[in-house]
């Protein structure tokens, strides 16, 4: 692992020397590096040498990589200029200040962990009903304490070389959820909420880092909601490191309904041990620019990953789903069904890579990507990629792009449904087979409500 080889040399790095030694830095990169230099003595855990070293190492990686441009293959379809042109500062909202929570926080029927601008807010959280098998801690608190167990865990699954946003996150992360689920109980549920407060006219960036461990044989259902309000842009750049032990199961449902002026970049790293199953559904309805990047590694025999999701675009929004599934062990299965529904001048990207190692015989990989274009100006770029080094595998992918069917719309209207309702029915039907994968009824209802809210907005825009 990159992180283990880099730590010793980092310990020796001269603390306090400027991190940015590379010439010709992009102004945005330089600004973030300056933020690191300015905050290095204030960020949680700054008194501990190993924490400082991790941040410094991240800063160097970030400076080396810079923000990707379209020349970078992984970012070819997503232009980051709108993001790099804005100067984002650090959040100022004090952690004990009352915050008006936005509407639309789903009711998950689960203990709730609340983050405002990337910082844990115990005052707004409700962990009373947390079962004994789940341990939830704040990353900031653990860093402050110099918690040694974090040393091996922080960045283990998310190496800073994995990408500029991962490095940026590692450099500036202030807080996050550290969740450990043991097998003692069954069916633990948790709701992790992120609110972008976007107060005033000062754009802010926050970089939450979540560490989730579902131990051998344990089970977790996690709903993650990323919401925000207001017209001031903010950047939510989160990184999640998820480790599933042998026979563990995790259902990970993510709702991204950020404020329409915001930027949302979420990078998830999940490793799945033998006989374990990682089951995720990601719905994106918000943000001006959103990238959902998932790296799932099937590292143990007979493990499985189901990555499903839907991205709904309207206005001039840009939504990007990028997945990399690595089959590193034999007899594993991966299933992906992603749907895009695009109105207005919105654009979507779907990049899905299935990487099958030589050892991963009897791999069963399947990927389906379907797009529904509601307007002639909407666009999707789709890039499936199979990289197979084993010889006994079953891997397939498919992609479709279509419009709403005029005969179906007429049929619905002839039965009395107004045009907007007829289209909504058909959009819902298009999403149905992906959404069906969410077996938890409460969570499915929450996603359906978010879909309906998106359509109300998209339709109002189109009608205007």
């Amino acid at each position, binding site marked *: 692992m990159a992180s283990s080889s880099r730590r010793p040399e980092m310990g020796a790095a001269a603390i306090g020397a400027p991190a940015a030694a590379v010439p010709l830095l992009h102004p945005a990169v330089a600004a973030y590096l300056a933020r690191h230099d300015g905050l290095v003595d204030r960020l949680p855990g700054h008194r501990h040498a190993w924490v400082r070293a991790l941040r410094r190492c991240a800063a160097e990686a970030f400076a080396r990589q810079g923000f990707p441009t379209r020349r970078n293959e992984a970012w070819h379809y997503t232009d980051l200029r709108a993001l790099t042109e804005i100067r984002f500062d650090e959040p100022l909202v004090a952690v004990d200040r009352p915050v008006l929570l936005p509407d639309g926080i789903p009711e998950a029927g689960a203990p709730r962990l609340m983050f405002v601008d990337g910082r844990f807010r115990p005052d707004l959280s409700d962990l009373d009903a947390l079962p004994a098998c789940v341990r939830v801690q704040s990353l900031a608190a653990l860093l402050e304490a110099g918690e040694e167990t974090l040393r091996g865990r922080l960045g283990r699954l998310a190496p800073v070389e994995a990408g500029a946003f991962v490095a940026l996150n590692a450099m500036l992360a202030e807080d996050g959820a550290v969740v450990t689920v043991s097998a003692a109980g069954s069916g633990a549920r948790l709701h992790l909420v992120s609110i972008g407060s976007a107060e005033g006219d000062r754009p802010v960036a926050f970089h939450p880092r979540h560490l989730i461990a579902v131990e051998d044989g344990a089970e977790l259902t996690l709903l993650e909601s990323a919401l925000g309000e207001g017209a001031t842009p903010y950047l939510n750049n989160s990184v999640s490191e998820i480790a599933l032990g042998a026979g563990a199961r995790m259902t990970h449902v993510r709702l991204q309904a950020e404020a329409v002026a915001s930027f949302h970049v979420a990078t998830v790293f999940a490793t799945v041990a033998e006989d374990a199953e990682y089951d995720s559904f990601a719905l994106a309805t918000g943000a001006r620019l959103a990238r959902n990047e998932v790296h799932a590694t099937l590292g143990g025999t007979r493990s499985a990953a189901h990555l499903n999701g839907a991205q709904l675009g309207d206005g001039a929004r840009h939504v990007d789903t990028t997945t990399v599934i690595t089959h590193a062990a034999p007899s594993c299965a991966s299933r992906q069904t992603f749907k895009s529904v695009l109105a207005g001048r919105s654009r979507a990207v779907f990049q899905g890579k299935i990487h099958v190692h030589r050892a991963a015989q009897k791999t069963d990989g399947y990927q389906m990507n379907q797009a529904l274009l509601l307007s002639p100006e909407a666009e999707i770029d789709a890039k499936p990629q199979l990289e197979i080094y084993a010889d006994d595998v079953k891997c397939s992918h498919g992609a479709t792009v279509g419009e709403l069917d005029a005969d179906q719309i007429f049929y619905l*209207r002839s039965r009395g449904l107004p045009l907007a309702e007829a289209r909504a029915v058909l959009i819902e*039907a298009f999403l149905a087979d992906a959404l069906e994968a969410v077996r938890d009824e409460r969570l499915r209802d929450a996603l359906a409500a978010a879909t309906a809210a998106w359509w109300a907005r998209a339709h109002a825009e189109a009608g205007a």
Partner: protein
Amino acid sequence: MLTIEGLAATVDGKPVLKGIDLAVPAGEVHAIMGPNGSGKSTLGYVLAGREGYEVTSGSVTFRGEDLLAMEPEDRAAAGLFLAFQYPVELPGVGNANFLRQALNAVRRKRGEAEVDAMQFLKLVRAKMRGLGMTEEMLKRFVNVGFSGGEKKRNEILQMSVLEPAFCVLDETDSGLDIDALRIVADGVNALRGPGRGMLVITHYQRLLAYIVPDRVHVLLGGRIVRSGGPELALELEEKGYGELQQAA
């Protein structure tokens, strides 16, 4: 109830209806008969407001209102119903939800209270029994995997749930065996009444043996060339359309 005057329409720029005059008073069932390509289905689609069917002249007055000025959904709310010759499949859309949504959309437009899931189920169960439909059909996607007969029954079920003032049945007999035909005809006949008008579009006389019309009109080349009583259907069955076609 429904008055069509000088109706002409084109499909893809081609004239199909070339001046139709027809009046169906409330309480009456009229049949439109004609060979393939005479414009029968076009008439149905024009009345329901399908896109791509362009009215070039004439008028249609429905319960005192200009039908052609209305959107398809407003025509439905005003009480017009078209039973499709080829009912459209809606994968992913549950039949029960679809029916309830349609009923509530129409009720909303009419200023009536919406029905909840329980009330709806009670209502629809009773209607389904009459049509020999199993409740399992409510759980399926609309028309997906339905046999030809099941699709037609589903159309009649929608009709009996929505209780429109005026029904246009487009080739409802096509693809039905004799038992299904009888069930569908019974369903239609149950809806006959003094306040309701019907236009039954058909190629063959056999449906009219079960749904006996008050008047029969023969559509040929986009015009109504002959009108008469129910006996006209029997005459056409015997002689075919050939003689009329030569005359026209």
